[in-house]
Each structure stands twice: as C-alpha cells, then as structure tokens.
C-alpha cells in the first residue's frame, strides 16, 4: 500500500533529507554574508572572505589536505573531475581507469581526447603492481579511480592503489562522489593527488557545490578564466591557488551548506552513519535474498563495499519495477544504468540495468520493512502471473 510519505532510497543520487543545520547555514549565508569574497575591502566583504577561508580550512582538514589553499571550490563533483582531467592531462595522454567509472569520468576522457585502459581487477584477486604495469604505456600519466561504485557499491582499496600509483610515478585522481562523508579519506596517507568531491551526497550538503583538492605535487592549468580579485592587471589567471582555479563569484550559500554538512557528519560521527546504513543494507539484503527470482549484485566481501546494492527481479523490467515501487508503494529508487554503463557491463547488467537500493542516514527500520514487503508482493505477483 502506498505510504503518505515517500520512502526515499535514492541517497546515492543525492542525500535526503538535508540536515536542519545545512538548511540553516545556507539561509544564514544568503541572508547575512551577502558580499562577494575576495573583491572588496569593506567589512562585509572581509566577513565573507573570512567565512570562505574558515570553511576551506575545515574542509581541507576533513580530507587530510595540509595546504588548504589547494582546496578549490567548484560547482560539483563532475565539474571537479573535468577540471582535474583537463587541467592535468593533455590530448593523447593515457590513464589507467577502473571499470566501475561513472560517465563523469568516461565522457570527460572522451571529450578531452585522453586514452584510457580499464584496470582488470575484481575482488577475488589481489590488486598488484603488475596489474597496473600490464596496462601502462609511455604516455600513462595517471590513475583515475571511482573510490566506490554508485551501481553496486564496490569499494576500491584506495590506500593500496595510492601506494602503487606513487611507486609507478603516476598521479592519482579520485572520484569520491559516493564515499566523501561516508568512508575515511586522507589525501596524504592515501597518496591522492586530485580528490573530486560533491557536497550533496555523503556530505549531506546542497547540490551545486563541490571540491577539487590538490596535493602539493600536482599543478593544474586553469580551464576556466575570469575575475579572481587578484592580479587584476594581467590577462592570465593568477599562478597561486586557490585563485588559479577559482574564476568568478563564489557560491557562498553552497559553501555554507557544504561546511555545515561536514560539521553535521563530525557531530553525528562518520562511523555512526556508516554503521547505521550498513545495518539497514545488510538487513535488507538478507530479507530480499529469501525471495525467489531476485538477484542481488554487490561485492562479496564486507570490506569491499559501501552500503548500497543493485538488484533485479527475473522477468520484470527494472524500469517497470521502479515505476511500481513509486506509484503503488511510494518508494523512490533509481533504476537503469545510473550514468555508469561500464559498471553495468562489468557487473553483467548491461544494457537493462537494475534497481538500486541506497538508504540514507535517516532511513528507518520501518521503511526498510515496508520496502521488503513491497518487493515481496511484486515478486509473488509476478510469479503467480507466470503460472
């Protein structure tokens, strides 16, 4: 039976609900920090300068980035990935990628003429330097990793990849869209050179704001040009960070929301959020696996996954299933290819795709029970139809 309130299980797309602290921070910033930072000397502008500076410092500390001036605010994770790829690589360069990559990476590589080879790895085999060497060539400049898949939740062993990349003198670019705020990320310890983050998923912030964090080893050419409030006499973008990569007026509301999201996670505890979502996911998986004709796609080992998974019911089109969940039960799940066709190819669900289960930090056991009940009813009904 359809619930009055939607059961939202699409937190891998965007987190819902946003914490009250995030909503308040965005509103306060838009109401009270109304000057443009980095552009003027009056006190209002200076307050805005200080606000952005403090947010930047906190975000850098959260991701283990020593020099906060190398934390760049962007309009989102996809934007960060594009700036990293286009700013670091040149046409004809080669990189090592992962099969679970999102179109944010696939399309950027294609767009900028970067060649790539997917790392042939699955969780049943050790991740070794040899695997990387097999796909390297003279033009290989970097490794780009989707820290965790938005399709089946496969979590790549980033620390190990970081060690290998460093040894092979390759830069490490990380798409942390699904892990920022959920999995511990320490750029220094993990040897990450470019970390691409969005605010609106695990960080519980608003859409339209993201981070590109750069290690001290990596220099990027600016890909967007415009006013920075510094070196205004020149036609070139400034040499120094963050101005080098931050053209145009800043998204103060977004920055405030991102900052509040980080502080909320620190208040609740990142591990607590991870544990709660994992508990819900495990419970759901156990319940769904008892249903005949259901197929669940997720990594086998606990240490190799984040709390989300993909599933299908034999004989039901994923889109039809998603539609039934929405219309009949008021349950929101994303279906299809999740903007990651290569991930579905690896998993074996291309081109049909699947239905994704992605609970949030506020998802309740009651909601999970209703979800399981709905899937059970749909599967049983389908089974009876077949007979």
């Amino acid at each position, binding site marked *: 039976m359809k619930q009055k309130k939607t059961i939202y299980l699409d937190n891998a797309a965007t987190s819902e609900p946003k914490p009250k602290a995030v909503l308040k921070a965005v509103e306060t910033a838009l109401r009270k920090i109304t000057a443009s*930072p*980095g*552009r*003027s*000397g009056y006190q209002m502008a*200076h307050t805005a*300068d*200080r606000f952005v*500076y403090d947010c*930047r410092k906190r975000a850098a500390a959260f991701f283990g980035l020593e020099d*906060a*001036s190398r934390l760049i605010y962007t309009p989102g994770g996809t934007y960060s990935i594009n700036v990293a790829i286009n700013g670091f690589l040149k046409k004809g360069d080669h990189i090592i990628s992962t099969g679970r990559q999102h179109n944010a990476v696939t399309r950027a590589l294609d767009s900028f003429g970067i060649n790539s080879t997917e790392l042939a790895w699955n969780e049943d085999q050790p991740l070794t330097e040899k695997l990387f060497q097999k796909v390297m060539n003279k033009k290989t400049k970097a490794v780009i990793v989707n820290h965790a898949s938005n399709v089946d939740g496969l979590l790549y062993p980033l620390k190990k990849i970081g060690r290998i990349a460093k040894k092979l003198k390759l830069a490490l670019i990380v798409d942390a869209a699904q892990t920022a705020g959920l999995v511990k990320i320490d750029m220094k310890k993990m040897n990450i050179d470019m970390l691409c983050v969005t605010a609106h998923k695990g960080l519980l912030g608003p859409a339209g704001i993201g981070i590109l964090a750069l290690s001290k080893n990596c220099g990027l050419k600016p890909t967007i040009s415009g006013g*920075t*409030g*510094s*070196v*205004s*006499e020149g036609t070139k973008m*400034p*040499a*120094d*960070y*963050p*101005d080098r990569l931050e053209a145009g007026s800043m998204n103060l509301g977004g920055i405030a929301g991102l900052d509040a999201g980080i502080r909320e996670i620190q208040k609740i505890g990142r591990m607590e959020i991870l544990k709660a979502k994992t508990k819900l996911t495990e419970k759901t998986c156990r319940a769904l696996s008892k249903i005949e004709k259901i197929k669940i796609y997720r990594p086998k080992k606990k240490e190799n996954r984040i709390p989300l998974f993909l599933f299908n019911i034999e004989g039901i089109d994923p889109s039809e299933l998603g539609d039934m969940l929405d219309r009949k039960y008021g349950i929101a799940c994303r279906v299809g290819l999740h903007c990651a066709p290569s991930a579905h190819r690896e998993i074996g669900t291309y081109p049909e795709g699947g239905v994704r289960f992605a609970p949030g930090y506020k998802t309740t056991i009651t909601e999970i029970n209703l979800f399981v009940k709905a899937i059970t009813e749909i599967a049983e009904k389908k089974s009876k139809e077949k007979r």
Partner: protein
Amino acid sequence: MKQCIAAFKTTYETLNAEDCFRDAGIKFRPILKPRKIGSSCRMVLRFDESLLPLAKKVVAKSKLEFAGFYRQEGEIWIKIEND
C-alpha cells in the same frame, strides 16, 4: 609613526597571514590594497613600522605566499627591499 603594509598573493594567503600576525601579537588592520601598488581588489595588512621586524619574521617562518612589504612615504607606498 610611519605605517607599513604586508601584501600577499591571494585572499586566502592574506587571511592566513592575519591568523599568523594575530598569533604573533602584531596589531594590524586589513585595508584595501592601495591602487598605487597594484590593481588587485584584495586586502593587505597595515601595521606600525615598529612591528616590521616581527612581521618579517612571521612571514619568513610561516612560508606565506608573499607579495611584499611597503612603507608609507607621504602619499606613496615604497616597496621595502631587504632592508
């Protein structure tokens, strides 16, 4: 007392410098960068000349992205070269 200013390459570094100056007990006031020393719209830190030696130490120790010290001479600001 003559005034000096410390200029930094970005707004981020200026704010970083504010923290460093504050920690070192340097009394300063952020002002808009005088037009005569550049066309940026950024802030610089103004302080009494007596604090210049300490300010130099702080800048050197903190490895700030530094653009220069200036001393006010009447209407103009003169860049201080390693004096």
